[in-house]
């Protein structure tokens, strides 16, 4: 099956060697061909919607417009921020005041999907069951969604925005132990990690703390901004909290890859800043089952 694909900027940068590569590999394994939207550009992210509303609608709207030039029904968007901005633009460009913007949309626009959402349809779950070769036995995780794939639900179309189940369904099929917890859709602080790191340390520390309290050994995410805030700064946040959390942060796609025996899974996971392979090794989930080369966090 062929679908349109809008990677978004960070999938070419900080989320390239883990998130992007794992998505490409699992798509291939499930026979989904990703056709990149031609001449795509940045959606404007939080900067545009914060200080230039018009540009935020026009930039994101143009991406939808570019994607409708491809002949596919579905548009897959791995970054929840882009997903949210694209959906917001579609909404704004359908309203009565749409003519104030310099971008217009035709009648035919693709269905916009988050990647995790796409992999959690009944049909895909069925296919996942068939491809699992190494169930993630004894891997105790909590799923963390953050804000953008869920809120506001009138924009995102999220089914259960206070208690989403998308990744839970996937992880359950992969054989992991998925624990319930109250912070699934709490905020990680997103780009404030640069402008107000102190705030992010508080928000993310609370997440780690709760994940550990409910007995999780790892957190699973579907957002590269959440991943960045939870994975890259863990040592600093532990210092602020004067507490060791030692929590690997996995992308749902990496775990699909791992459980389905897709080549590359261990490599993607080795690209995290927080060491994330030894937990899997202890549980006997690595293919090689030899002690992984643990790259020290410099």
């Amino acid at each position, binding site marked *: 099956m062929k679908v349109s694909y809008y990677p978004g900027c960070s999938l070419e940068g900080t989320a390239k060697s883990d998130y992007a590569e794992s998505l490409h590999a699992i798509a291939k394994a499930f026979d989904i061909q990703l056709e990149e939207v031609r001449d795509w550009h940045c959606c404007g992210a939080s*900067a545009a919607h914060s200080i230039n509303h018009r540009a935020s609608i026009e930039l994101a709207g143009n991406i939808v417009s570019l994607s409708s030039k491809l002949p596919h029904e579905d548009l897959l968007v791995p970054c929840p921020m882009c997903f949210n901005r694209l959906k917001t633009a579609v909404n704004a460009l359908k309203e009565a005041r749409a003519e104030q913007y310099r971008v217009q949309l035709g009648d035919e626009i693709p269905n916009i999907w988050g990647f995790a959402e796409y992999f959690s349809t009944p049909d895909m779950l069925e296919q996942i069951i068939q491809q699992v070769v190494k169930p993630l036995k004894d891997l105790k995780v909590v799923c963390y969604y953050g804000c953008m794939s869920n809120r506001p639900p009138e924009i995102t179309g999220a089914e259960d925005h206070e208690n989403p189940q998308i990744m839970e369904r996937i992880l359950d099929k992969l054989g992991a132990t998925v624990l319930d917890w109250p912070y699934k859709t709490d905020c990680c602080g997103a780009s404030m990690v640069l402008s107000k790191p102190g705030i992010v340390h508080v928000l993310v520390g609370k997440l780690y703390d709760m994940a550990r309290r409910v007995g999780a050994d790892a957190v699973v995410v579907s957002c590269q901004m959440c991943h960045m805030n939870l994975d890259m700064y863990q040592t600093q946040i532990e210092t602020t909290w004067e507490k060791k959390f030692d929590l690997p942060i996995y992308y749902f796609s990496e775990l699909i890859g791992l459980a389905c025996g897709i080549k590359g899974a261990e490599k993607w996971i080795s690209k995290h800043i927080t060491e994330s392979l030894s937990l899997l090794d202890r549980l006997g989930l690595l293919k090689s089952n030899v002690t992984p080369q643990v790259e020290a966090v410099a």
Partner: protein
Amino acid sequence: MESALKPDFQFLDEVESHGPFEAAACYQCRKCTNGCPVTFAMDLYPDQVIRKVILGQKDDVLRCSTIWVCATCETCTTRCPNDVKIAEIMDCLKEMAARQNIPVPQPQARILHQTFLKNIRRHGRVFEGELMAEYLITSGQLMPKFKDGTLMDDMKLGINLLRKGKMPVIPKIHKGRKFVSEILKD
């Protein structure tokens, strides 16, 4: 945030002209504030911002740090029983304050957004390494970060990202760039 009452009765209309945000529907239940994850760092609570918009307390809301601390998590907008678009009002106030160059107590968030837009205007897609460096310089954090040692952490992280294939060293050339610089001209 105490100031003599100088209401600007046009202000609610001015804000709503960028909406509709339904600010006037607020009945002060504070549900927005109770679910907000960053109230601990705010000088005005979200419900107070809405109230002050209604009361025309323009200076208070354009100068507060709350609008820049708001993470746009959309919890407030999602939960408001009266469909007040609180997060969207926060954005609208940010844009007004930025366009009018109103001084903010801690301008980092605004500088980050401005640097980001400059970056994509230049490249069409975010070039993360350059963005981080430029932001550190323009926000005046280079020296303080050098002094408290966190610059070293950032540099180590940068090297780590480079090693792990998460930090391209040259920006991609692509055709979408022109559109972005056109849109961001004004």
